[in-house]
């Protein structure tokens, strides 16, 4: 008998040891449940962060664009007359008004990590007989690299954008038959043209992006797209990609410009992810419920089995509170030990998964990062669930009338 342990602990430990088979079975059950939860959570979190990372590779979480131009019908004449049909205006490439001020203001917004001005528009890349439609992106290299990890994606050449340099994707390079150091001609619909030297090739792992995107210096893009001194958009990196929509709304309210978060522009993708998260939550809930019911049923049986002993304890001066805690402790203990074993089990599942889920070249399909927080949460959650599951049996035990319990 441990001299430091309170009465309830000692009695709880002895009761559990007495019904060792029951205790072990339920602890094993809880461990399996927690193992599944840990495995599922880590897997889905890994999957989602992987998809998000890949998406945010070539896309800023928030983009500020000038407000859309709207038609302003000149009404007059008959009072009360209404224009029945208003033809929407065609949208021309415009600069954000006073973009330097906007940039500075956005940079101060909480949650924003980096901002960069962009001049983007359509164009054609020509080389010899090849002619490809491209999205021209004029960037300020230094600030752009703080928003988009372009530097990591360069597979050839160096990312140094002078006014006559261009960085293109590997697909476009293939289509044009161009390599680092080769020249190509970039034209726009407006008729402007420039001959540029390929400074580097990038590979974002996305064919569309590798085929379409070309990067040139901001100033060159301003000239080509007839936007001298202006920028067509501002791209923003935020601390928490999932807070992007909230921050975008803040910025929109603050600047009056349109701020689109990647959450809004990838709504379908997000719906899919939300569905995935929901199914994960549901699985967790039902696994947790199963574990709770298991613990509760074991303890209910234990209260019935031990009612005589509970009566004796009460006759010998144990209070209702002591009896209540005696059973709550058993529930908490089963939850805690089960969850600790379950964390180990979850790790084992993940290790097994890592062994199986590999690309043909042996690299993992995606990286699963297991956060310690997950284990802490699982252990806390299971202990709480165990304690809660024990409430009904414990109350029943505490309410036992000692005289009746002893009579049996």
């Amino acid at each position, binding site marked *: *008998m*441990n*001299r*430091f*342990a*309170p*009465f309830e602990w*000692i*009695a709880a430990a*002895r*009761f559990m*040891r*007495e019904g060792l088979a029951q205790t072990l079975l339920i602890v094993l059950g809880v461990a399996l449940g927690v193992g599944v939860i840990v495995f599922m959570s880590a897997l889905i979190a890994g999957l989602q962060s992987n998809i998000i990372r890949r998406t945010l590779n070539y896309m800023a979480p928030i983009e500020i664009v000038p407000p859309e131009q709207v038609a302003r019908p000149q009404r007059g004449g008959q009072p009360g007359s209404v224009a029945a049909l208003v033809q929407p205006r065609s949208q021309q490439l415009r600069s954000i008004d006073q973009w330097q001020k906007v940039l500075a203001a956005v940079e101060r917004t909480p949650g924003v990590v980096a901002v960069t001005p962009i001049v983007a528009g359509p164009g054609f890349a020509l080389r010899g007989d090849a002619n490809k439609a491209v999205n021209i992106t004029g960037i300020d290299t230094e600030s752009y690299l703080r928003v988009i990890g372009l530097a990591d994606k360069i597979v050839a050449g160096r990312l140094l954008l002078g006014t006559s340099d261009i960085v293109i994707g590997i697909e476009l390079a293939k289509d044009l038959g161009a390599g680092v150091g080769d020249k190509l001609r970039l034209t726009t619909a407006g008729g402007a043209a420039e001959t540029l030297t390929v400074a580097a090739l990038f590979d974002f792992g996305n064919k569309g992006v590798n085929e379409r995107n070309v990067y040139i210096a901001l100033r060159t893009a301003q000239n080509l797209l007839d936007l001298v001194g202006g920028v067509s958009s501002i791209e923003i990196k935020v601390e928490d990609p999932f807070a992007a929509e909230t921050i975008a709304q803040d910025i929109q309210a603050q600047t009056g410009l349109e701020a689109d978060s990647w959450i809004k522009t990838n709504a379908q993708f997000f719906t899919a992810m939300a569905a995935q998260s929901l199914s994960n939550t549901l699985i967790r809930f039902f696994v947790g419920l199963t574990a709770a019911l298991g613990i509760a049923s074991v303890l209910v049986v234990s209260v019935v089995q031990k009612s*005589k*002993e509970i009566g*004796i*304890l*009460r*006759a*010998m*001066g*144990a*209070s*209702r509170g*002591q009896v209540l805690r005696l059973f709550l402790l058993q529930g908490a203990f089963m939850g805690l030990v089960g969850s600790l074993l379950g964390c180990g089990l979850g790790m084992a599942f993940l290790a097994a998964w890592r062994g199986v889920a590999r690309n043909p070249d042996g690299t993992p399909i995606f990286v699963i990062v297991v956060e310690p927080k997950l284990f802490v949460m699982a252990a806390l959650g299971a202990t709480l669930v165990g304690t809660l599951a024990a409430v009904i049996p414990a109350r029943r035990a505490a309410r036992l*009338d*000692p*005289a009746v319990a*002893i*009579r049996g």
Partner: protein
Amino acid sequence: MAEAAQTLRLEGVRKSYNTGTPLETEVLHGIDLVLARGEFAALIGPSGSGKSTLLNVIGLLDPPNAGRLFIEGREAGKLDDGEMTRLRGRAIGFVFQYHYLLPAFTALENVMMPALAARGRPDDEMRATAAGLLEEVGLARWRDKKTGELSGGQQQRVAVARALAMKPALVLADEPTGNLDTQSADGVFELLRSVNEASGTTFLIVTHDPRLAQRCDRIVELVDGRIVADRPNVAPSRGPRTASWSP
């Protein structure tokens, strides 16, 4: 009799079961009883006369429906559940017909249990007291055995030691020898008697056995929930019984 010398006083205690239903049965019909400090009394009566019910009421395990109950001058009816539990733990020791030890604990731990429940944590004093009591009941050698490994007589001796653990003013024994063979029964009875003589603890012993009752100082007879006889036993018989007797 001065109140201070009374360990127990019952005034018009009534107990019914299934109260408020058509099946309501009154088991105790107005019991008046006083036990002075140091008394060694037998409670006898036929089966179903209400002996065990009366013992449960006195032991604060079952509240009476009417009447007043004083333990060491404190009126039990005026206590809340927590105070009642404390009073029960401190002032009353139980010895049941079946030993009712906790099988998950050793003999020593069983004897420590009332003090442990009262004080919350085990300590050396508790351990020493319990070891001393086990020695008194002749079980020093078996103190670290689980109770399941002991014989019936030994288990009942452990139960007696446990009943004495808090130095209670009153020990209630419900057929303490009912499950034992003659020899063990004698041993346990003698043990109770010697504790009574050595410490002045008041005993109330429910028994079926007239021979056992004859060895007590006072015999209270209960029939159909009423005390029909209450007489001092002027010359209690002494020494181990020789006649064979089975419950």
